[in-house]
């Protein structure tokens, strides 16, 4: 199905927002304005964008340690995200979570997670909630090739399948688990093939093609909404930065490999398509870029100007009332 022009532009805008957000986070981190462990999503924008485009606000997602893109694609506010990354009181978690624990339950973003694979069992619960609510809702969980090696992948795929939960397992295979190559660590390179062992459909898509991800995700989400049970979607992609924003972190990836993936940039690919199909001119795209950069500036300003939490705020929120 050929998607409409405004939907194409929406996909582009979301991807570019993620890209510009992450570029800025990386820059501010390098300058010492952001502390801690920060994993940026640059290179993988098409996955979160294409999948979340098919989800409603009432649908729920669970994210990984590399979660900024998922939050943005699900509709989180970049000001409150940036404030959280800066450790400010106005952040989503009042500064208690930081980059690895951004969540926005109001838009169905049930949280990033610093433990590889640990989001999958939680997502099984989100899928169970959707099933019990009987409103045709669905859930999705994002994880990497590395997480597919965790026991929780097996347990969660199996449990979601026997309970026929409306849960999409979205594997972002970016070919490296931290610095360990998938070529070494995965006994079979196609993770989607594992779906067969769990009695669910396994589908693979070019994770750098947002239109392909969007259309594939649409079919799978529709299937889930009709009670078809869980699915595994593998998106082949690549992250441009090292595992996290620390220049001393080992990066064994060959330069030619990285360059070949940069040449397959999901955003450039979409720009070419928008121009070729007459949806947007170069000028239109420049205007989109300018407006996004302004919003990112506003988010950083908001984060910088927001107050830090008081030290004793550390004592709040250990328990819910």
């Amino acid at each position: 199905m050929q998607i409409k022009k405004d939907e194409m532009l929406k996909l582009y805008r979301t991807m570019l927002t993620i890209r510009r957000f992450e570029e800025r986070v990386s820059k501010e981190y390098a300058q010492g304005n952001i502390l801690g462990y920060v994993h940026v999503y640059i290179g993988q924008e098409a996955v979160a964008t294409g999948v979340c485009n098919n989800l409603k606000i009432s649908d729920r997602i669970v994210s990984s340690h590399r979660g900024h893109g998922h939050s943005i694609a699900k509709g989180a506010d970049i000001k409150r995200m940036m404030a959280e990354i800066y450790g400010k009181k106005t952040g989503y978690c009042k500064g208690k979570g930081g980059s690895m624990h951004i969540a926005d339950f109001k838009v169905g973003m049930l949280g990033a997670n610093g433990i590889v694979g640990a989001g999958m069992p939680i997502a099984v619960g989100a899928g169970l909630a959707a099933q019990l609510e009987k409103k045709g809702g669905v859930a999705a969980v994002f994880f990497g090739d590395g997480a597919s090696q965790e026991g929780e992948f097996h347990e969660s795929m199996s449990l979601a399948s026997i309970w026929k939960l409306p849960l999409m397992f979205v594997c972002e295979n970016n070919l490296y688990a931290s610095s360990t190559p998938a070529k070494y660590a995965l006994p079979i390179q196609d993770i989607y093939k594992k779906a067969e062992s769990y009695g669910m459909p396994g589908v693979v898509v070019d994770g750098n093609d947002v239109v392909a991800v969007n259309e594939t995700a649409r079919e799978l989400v529709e299937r889930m909404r009709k009670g078809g049970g869980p699915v595994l979607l593998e998106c082949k992609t690549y992250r441009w930065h090292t595992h996290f924003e620390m220049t001393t972190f080992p990066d064994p990836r060959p330069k030619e490999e990285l360059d070949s993936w940069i040449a397959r940039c999901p955003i450039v690919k979409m720009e070419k398509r928008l121009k070729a199909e007459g949806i947007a001119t170069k000028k239109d795209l420049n205007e989109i870029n300018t407006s996004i950069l302004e919003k990112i500036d506003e988010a950083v300003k908001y984060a910088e100007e927001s107050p830090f939490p008081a030290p004793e705020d550390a004592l709040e929120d250990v328990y819910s009332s």
Partner: protein
Amino acid sequence: MRKISYNQATAEALQEEFRKNEKLVHMAEDIPQDLYDEFGAERIRMTPISESAFVGAAIGVAGSGFRAVADVRMATFAFCAFDQFVNQAAKITYMFGGQAKFPILYRQRNGLGVSAAAQHSVNPYSMYMNVAGLKIIIPATPYDAKGLLKTALRDNNPVISFEHMKLGEVEGEVPEKEYTIPFGKAAVMRKGKDITVVAISYMVYEALAAAEEVKKLGISVEVIDPRTLVPMDKETIRNSVVKTGRLVVVDEACQTCSAAAEILSVVVEDADTFKSLKAPTKRVCGLDVPVPFSAPMEKYAIPDTDRIVEAIKEVVSYKG
């Protein structure tokens, strides 16, 4: 008052709360048949032996507006899902800034003394006490089990209930009328004036037997069951020690970094309580060994009435 078993009391607590609250969902490898018959397969979920998956699923469903019970049966199996307990359930409320509630009851059977050997004989509650964000209840009587589980099923946080394996058939008075027991309220199981014995879980019964034994020697023992370890009723423990001036803590778990160690700290850190002490405090705990299988060795590794009696006599006879 009618008497029912500990197992009947816990079953009643769940049944009553499941009737009241349609949002309650139960997950376990062995399904509770009575609940299953009454509430059906949708709410009473049978799980595969996938502890991480269903311990974590409880978090996801609870964070999505439901309320979950996840019963891992034996406490030792919870180690398979340790990340979901300590990194997820315990921290998720806090690290997301309190934007969602996670009402979950996790049930675990703890305890030694059933010839189950090292892996199936565990009392890991102090490990969980050391993780901020969990509430921990450890009822010793049918009355407490029902009242505390009902409170847990209305709490908006992850609660772990440790239920000793030897308590299931123990009978006790439980009123027909509905009641709940608040967390953080210890029970004074026996009043006394010469020495305070704080005992946890099954050890409450051993402590009561020891108190009866030393009564023959003219020693009057106050026995306190904290009932919940997080939050802990420091006040009742301290008040008792101020009154008696002596303390023995009995905990079946290994001694090192035990709940007993925490209870001692509660006492000695408080100036008034510390000043009232007439003798060094004493712990009667499980030996720091993996629990052996063979009966004579196992018995040796676990605190019992005799060992508590000896400890009481030692503390009471202390001359400084």
